[in-house]
């Protein structure tokens, strides 16, 4: 399987604090790569560097595309999603709560729709070309809502959904931008066991059916061990272990990082 993302010597310093220290790892296409580690290990900082919210102090991040590669450092802000097609979700859900579920999914297709509406001109004239494109966008939203079983609530406000459904909605909203890399920040936080199982199913579906690699930060070990193809363990900003889920479970360094060392 080919490489999708390579992170090389990534370092992020906040003043005197080194949040990430010389981190390198790869993520592959159609695989789920998990980043785990105790609280404060720098997991979310890695995400913020990848998705353009922070500018790393040092190091490179490349997204591979057939035989070329693009540097994620060049893109900041909204361009990460727009040009590089890296999508993300957030640790504390960030939906548009006062907008309907369907509208949430349409905002994710903003850039295509904006072109289709002739930057609002065709839309104001209500041309057929725009209406057709809009219908396509609605169909795509419906496709994803069918998968997470929320089609019947498409017209309700996103903020009125139960917590578990909001998590799933945020993930499929990110999928609506057709990302090549999907970064999920603790998607299982606050979910009950049944919802976690559904989440696993959804992530496996995305991994196998879509041309998307998944990068996952997670504390819920049932999720991590159940679906990860590859695990990267961080502690104090450094990579302390890398391997398959089973290898990780039995690694002495990982157990030490989580539970401490016997004196």
């Amino acid at each position, binding site marked *: 399987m080919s490489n999708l993302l390579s992170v090389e010597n990534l370092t992020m310093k906040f003043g005197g604090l080194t949040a990430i220290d010389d981190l390198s790892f790869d993520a592959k296409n159609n695989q789920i790569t998990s980043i785990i580690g105790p609280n404060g290990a720098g997991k979310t900082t890695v995400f913020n560097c990848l998705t353009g919210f922070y500018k790393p102090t040092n190091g490179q991040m490349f997204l591979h595309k057939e035989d070329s590669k693009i540097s994620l450092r060049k893109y900041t802000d909204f361009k990460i*999603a727009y040009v590089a097609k890296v999508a993300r979700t957030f640790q504390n859900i960030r*939906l548009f709560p006062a907008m*309907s579920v369907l509208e949430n999914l349409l905002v994710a297709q903003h850039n295509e729709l904006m072109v289709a*509406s002739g930057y609002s001109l065709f839309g104001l004239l209500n041309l057929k070309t725009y209406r057709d494109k809009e219908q396509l966008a609605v169909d795509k939203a419906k496709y994803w809502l069918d998968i997470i079983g929320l089609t019947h609530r498409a017209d309700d406000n996103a903020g009125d959904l139960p917590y578990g459904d909001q998590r799933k909605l945020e993930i499929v909203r*990110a999928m609506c931008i057709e990302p090549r890399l999907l970064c999920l920040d603790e998607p299982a936080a606050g979910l009950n066991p049944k919802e976690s199982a559904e989440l696993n199913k959804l992530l496996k579906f995305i991994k196998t059916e879509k041309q998307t690699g998944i990068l996952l930060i997670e504390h819920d070990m049932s999720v991590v061990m159940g679906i990860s193809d590859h695990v990267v363990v961080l502690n104090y900003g450094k990579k302390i272990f890398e391997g398959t889920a089973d290898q990780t479970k039995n690694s002495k360094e990982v157990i030490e990082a989580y539970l401490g060392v016997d004196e």
Partner: protein
Amino acid sequence: MEKKDIIQSFKDSLFTGLIALALFGPIVGLRTVSKGEGLFITPQWGVVFLLVGLCILGRFLININSARRTEFKIFSTLSSKFSSVTEDKAKHFAITGILFAVVFPFLPFTDRYFMDVAIMILTYIMLGWGLNIVVGLAGLLDLGYVAFYAVGAYSYALIATTFGWSFWICLPLAGVFAAFFGILLGFPVLRLRGDYLAIVTLGFGEIIRIILINWYEVTNGPDGITGIPRPSFFGLPFKRSPDEGETSFHLFFNLEYSTMHRIIFLYYLILVLALITNYFTLKIRKLPVGRAWEALREDEIACKSLGVNPTNTKLTAFAIGAMFGGFAGSFFATRQAFISPESFTFIESAIIVAIVVLGGMGSQTGVVLASIFLIGITEMFRDLEQYRMIAFGGAMVLIMVFKPKGILANRKPTILMHGDKK
């Protein structure tokens, strides 16, 4: 109702009375009168006690009502009457409203005064609708909206008096200028949100006003611009005796000359302009850019993570909102035939923001109701001179007590998957 509750509400009311006393005491109680060579203080404690008493009584009634007992039903029925006006019914309301607005000038009781008030209310409705794009949809609290109103008015006045072009050429130009200033304001405030944005926009409003006062060569400073051409009815001026080679409106249609003709024309002009604003907003709300505005209001970081360009989105909101402010400004200039910086003070911005917020952020019908309510009430009490602002404040308090989210706070999705289910 339990005794404990009553005592509690009574205590609370007395506390409210104390605050009212602290406010009204010096403001109303100590009145300065100039007699002969000096300034003397005439206390009027009677009025103060009356006002404080009213505050205590009002607070007491609200407290008792909020205890949800059946004895005092007045407030709850009143407030449920308001809530029954949902956005669904708003459509019928809108059609009735537009029909009423169209026939209004020909109703038997309509006189010059009514027409003037109606034109004023419509101007505020149009400004409210324009600001609704910025504040209601995009969620950018703009306290300097009057700046665009001023830019529109001055652009119109300067172009019309300098080049003598007709209203219909100057109007779009004024809109373009105002939109340009909207972008100009937009750039420095792109990173700001909430309180900080409000302060900077407030400053921007003042900057424009101060430039208008001090740039004497162009704006004629505090003296303002006089002799702004009146609009003509598609080339037919509203004059008793037209210039040679011209036909005026009443001669062309063979009518008796009346000053009301022009007033009625102005009324329809602002009505059409306001309706265009409304139509445009309703349309653009359902387009990707409109949805992006609302998404930006909800969560800017999420927007960025989905590839929505926040810079362009905010700038379009500022520009389009400002453009409608500019249109309203040129209407104001042509109606008054005279403008000066005094018409564009902060209080105007505050009134427009109040209309949008009290109407229910983002609700088009809400803006209409709030304008009629706020401006109408203030006008009704015009005889009380400066005390009419108490009526204005009272109207705001009433809305905030009964409808804390605005008169019409229901938002309807811009697109439905399952159609309307009733």
